[in-house]
């Protein structure tokens, strides 16, 4: 298994992981508050639902982004066989990034809204979902990503060593940086604003993040399962081609109801329909790897989280996504809890599980453990995944109720909206989501406990079966 000394960039990677897992916790707390507000309106006086939701979805983006940065900073020295360039700058950026996130969170909690002037955009809230962070914070995030690009590219130049994974990674960093620039303009035409905003939200998630995750998994496969480089790289090229081939034009499914030209319905529907096929290929690959290793690897938690990623991605993005992706169905489901159900499951499967996998791998490396196993990770794995299945299932029931009563029967009127919100199926779904969220939160605490102690605590194993004295063999 891996036995290199820890590089400075790997130490920075561990800091990013700590920050990511802390924000994962903040995301869960904000999510629980929002879930509770659905069933007990006004649950948190002074912190309206809109702010709870902003905290929930923005920390989702930031914890995953920090997890990706941590993964790259941790794994890349293994590719380059050297430390990354510009680590002092990268360390400074990390602390600035953390300070920025804390300042933005405090602004959202205590200031909340402004008068809607240019000053509000700069200091309080930009008002666009997922990128609400005020403009000063967006500038810092942009600089942070630019420094990250510099670390990776300058190291490649100095190391004079390029692999297929590195080519793909560097090519992906350009849109990762450029697309974030869309967070800045405030376009007054709603259709034009939504059109470009989806470039940020969709392309970040279904293009640059997918490719980034594929690069991380590629390096991880080589480290975790000792998979040969040419296998990993060939598969990486195919996966990237398939994901981009279906995902890029799959953006059309977000253009259905924003005033974009009608031809997007055909393009979006067609390419979205093809999106489950590469995900199916990933599931087949995961089973192939599991069979190759007979489920026996030195780092069982990382291995099982990697399998969870493949299956979660297929179920959350593939099955849940396909239920609502064709325009005729999407017209009723768009913007209901149904899409929230798909979003929860897909984000968790595609990215959450992947980041947790890398953290387990890094911890084994840091703690120089021969193998990672035990009981706690199984509880964390079970509670988190069951909690997520419960949340996605409950939101599905509530979302279907909304689509059925509010949209299809009620014609999207205000009274139909109220009627759907009061429907027992909707209400019970929201209660079930809260209960599943609590299970998920419990799993988070077990996961954190396991992260802190795995490889350090003494595992008590079952005693060997006693040998019978006086048996025939004696």
């Amino acid at each position, binding site marked *: 298994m891996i036995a290199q000394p820890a590089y400075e960039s790997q130490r920075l990677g561990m800091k990013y992981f700590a920050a990511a897992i802390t924000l994962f916790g903040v995301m869960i707390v904000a999510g629980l508050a929002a879930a509770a507000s659905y069933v007990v309106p006004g649950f948190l006086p002074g912190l309206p639902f809109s702010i709870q939701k902003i905290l929930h979805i923005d920390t989702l983006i930031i914890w995953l982004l920090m997890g990706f940065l941590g993964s790259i900073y941790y794994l890349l020295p293994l590719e380059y066989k050297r430390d990354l360039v510009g680590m002092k700058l990268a360390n400074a950026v990390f602390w600035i990034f953390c300070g920025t996130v804390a300042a933005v969170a405090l602004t959202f909690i205590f200031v909340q809204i402004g008068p809607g002037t240019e000053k509000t955009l700069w200091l309080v809230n930009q008002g666009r979902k997922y990128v609400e962070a005020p403009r000063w914070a967006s500038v810092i995030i942009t600089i942070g990503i630019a420094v990250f690009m510099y670390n990776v590219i300058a190291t490649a130049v100095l190391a004079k*060593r*390029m*692999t*297929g994974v590195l080519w793909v990674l560097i090519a992906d960093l350009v849109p990762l940086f450029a697309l974030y620039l869309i967070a800045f303009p405030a376009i007054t035409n709603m259709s034009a604003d939504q059109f470009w905003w989806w470039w940020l939200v969709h392309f970040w998630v279904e293009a640059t993040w997918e490719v980034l995750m594929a690069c991380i998994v590629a390096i991880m496969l080589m480290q975790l399962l000792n998979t*040969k*480089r*040419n*296998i990993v790289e*060939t*598969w990486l090229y195919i996966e990237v081609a398939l994901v981009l081939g279906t995902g890029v034009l799959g953006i059309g499914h977000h253009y259905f109801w924003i005033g974009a030209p009608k031809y997007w319905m*055909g393009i979006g*529907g*067609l390419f979205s*329909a*093809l999106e*489950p*096929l590469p995900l*199916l*290929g990933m*599931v*087949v*690959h995961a*089973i*192939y790897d*599991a*069979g*190759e290793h007979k489920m026996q690897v030195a780092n069982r938690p990382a291995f099982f989280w990697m399998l969870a990623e493949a299956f979660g991605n*297929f*179920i959350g993005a*593939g*099955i*849940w996504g*396909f*239920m*609502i*992706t*064709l325009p*005729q*169905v999407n017209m*009723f*489901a768009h913007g209901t809890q149904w899409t929230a159900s798909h979003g929860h499951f897909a984000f968790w499967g595609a990215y959450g599980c992947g980041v947790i996998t890398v953290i387990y791998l890094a911890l084994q490396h840091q703690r120089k453990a021969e193998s990672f196993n035990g009981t706690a990770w199984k509880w964390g794995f079970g509670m988190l995944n069951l909690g997520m299945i419960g949340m996605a299932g409950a939101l599905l029931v509530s979302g*279907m109720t909304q*689509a*059925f*009563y509010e949209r*299809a*029967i009620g014609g999207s009127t205000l009274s139909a909206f109220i009627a759907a919100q009061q429907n027992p199926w909707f209400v019970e779904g929201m209660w079930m989501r809260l209960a599943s969220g609590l299970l998920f939160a419990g799993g988070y605490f077990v996961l954190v406990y396991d992260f802190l102690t795995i490889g350090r605590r003494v595992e008590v194993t079952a005693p060997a079966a006693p040998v019978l004295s006086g048996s025939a063999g004696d």
Partner: protein
Amino acid sequence: MTAVELIVSSLLLGGFVAAGGAYGILLSLGHALRDARWRRLALAAYAVQCIFAVAVVVFTPLDWWWKLLIGASDAAYYFVPPMTWRYLISLHDLPEESSR
């Protein structure tokens, strides 16, 4: 599309992909475990997927080109898992190359 048709259509579409996933998983397990029973189960899952595809064509109010897409996808699903598996095997048989 009526409210009932909406729920039926979406469930059939979700079921279609879920059955395709089950086919891929069971076929892969059959190959990994070298057990023909899993492969027979995989074919049963694919048959269920075909039933879902037919149900989408017959019972949903989707336009004809979406129904055609579901039919074509159904055919594609049949080939993706075995092709992926064969490709993975041939890939693992390749000699290791040094990195560039």
